[in-house]
């Protein structure tokens, strides 16, 4: 079995004993409510702007896939851009029509360090596996860490905006898209507060950022985690409870 391949058997030793579910974006109850904020953005923008495009920093592709569902419900979205870091399986797919999962590359936008995005099959289903339709609605670009840091600086020094590394990748893709589609208005998703990536952001823009209260309240608490290195250890942990 490949280290990166999906394992496809049912582990009844676990499922016979305990009821398990997943809270990853694969769960429909996590995925579908992500449609909400595409509508909220539209509500705020539609009077001033037509041709709204969303640039979505993408890792497991749940967020962008929810945006596409919003579009299926009739929300007038002109186009989607999947903004990738160096983990660019979808960028490559749109260029070559070859979908090739890859080992993960570690980047400064670590929530997007995904080599085999789970939700991409849902995107394929939305567009009924029609590559031409998909390309009509979705484009994708990939950006490395250095240019992402440059974007953090540009946003801060030119626009007085502190982004996080994921938002910065979204911003880069928005800028590139507008070069060819100047009539559009691009919205990039700022998916996490910049203090969640404090080291990178502070080192890059050379400013100290105050911790918001939600973050400050957990920093003094003691970490409690159990170290595991194999599936068997996970299984033993689940069955021991």
């Amino acid at each position, binding site marked *: 079995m490949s280290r990166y391949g999906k394992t496809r058997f049912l582990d009844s030793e*676990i*499922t016979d004993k305990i009821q*398990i*579910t997943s*809270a990853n974006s*694969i*769960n*429909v*109850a*996590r*995925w*579908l*409510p*992500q449609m909400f*904020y595409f*509508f*909220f953005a539209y*509500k*705020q923008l539609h009077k001033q702007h037509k041709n709204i495009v969303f640039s979505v920093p993408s890792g497991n592709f749940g967020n962008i896939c929810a945006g596409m*569902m*919003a579009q*299926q*419900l*009739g929300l007038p979205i002109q186009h989607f851009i999947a903004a990738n870091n160096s983990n660019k399986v979808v960028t490559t797919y749109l260029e070559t029509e070859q979908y090739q999962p890859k*080992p*993960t590359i*570690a980047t400064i936008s670590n929530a997007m360090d995904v080599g085999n995005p789970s*939700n991409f099959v*849902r995107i394929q289903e939305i567009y009924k596996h029609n590559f031409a339709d998909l390309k009509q609605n979705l484009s994708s670009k990939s950006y490395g860490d250095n240019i992402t840091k440059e974007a953090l600086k540009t*946003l801060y020094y030119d*626009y007085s*905006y502190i*982004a996080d590394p994921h*938002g910065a990748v979204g*911003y880069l893709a928005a800028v590139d898209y507008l070069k060819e589609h100047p009539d559009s208005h691009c*919205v990039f*998703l*700022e*998916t*996490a*507060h910049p*203090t*969640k*990536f*404090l*080291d990178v952001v502070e080192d890059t823009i050379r400013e100290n950022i105050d911790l*918001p209260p*939600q*973050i400050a309240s*957990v*920093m003094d608490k003691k*970490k*409690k*985690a*159990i*170290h*595991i290195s194999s*599936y068997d250890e*996970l299984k033993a942990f*689940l069955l021991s409870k």
Partner: protein
Amino acid sequence: MNYYSLNKLAPIASFKEAVVKGLAPDKGLYFPEHISKLPDSFFQNIDKLSYNEIAFEVIKLFVVPEIPEEDLKLIIEETLCFDFPIVPISDQISSLELFHGPTMAFKDVGARFMSRCLGYFNADNTKDITVLVATSGDTGGAVANGFLGVKGVKVVILYPSGKVSDIQEKQLTTLGKNIKALEVDGVFDDCQDMVKRAF
């Protein structure tokens, strides 16, 4: 609404089954059987609707009647307890800030919504549900926070050792109660593979 597995080898599932199972028995992701457009009047009136009302109209098709309308409204109210501002960057570019929730990540929305759905479905069940989640960074904290103290639900979070930020690690390892964190030697895909294998 019913859901089918994208691997097409599992029975059709109700919303409840899809939420409680997470992944279909054939390891496929669930997908809704029907997607229908919202009426034109919804878009014509969108300026007059509150965020809660918008969210209700958008998701009710996928959720009602398995969660009754009044309960769904309550779930939405508890989910959307923070703002989603658009911040203009330039004439042509805006930022949609999704980080004003309790763990400051977009995932707060999905995690809060899901935890309350699961809590609703498990309200009169005596057996606990274990929620298993792999995180590449932000999911863990959002799920931990969203599920903290939800009755009948235990949460086990797998995260790649040394590959999440200090703040992210704190957010998912310090809550206690019904939340347990497992630090995995490997990368996110290894965590996700383990989660998929456990079903």
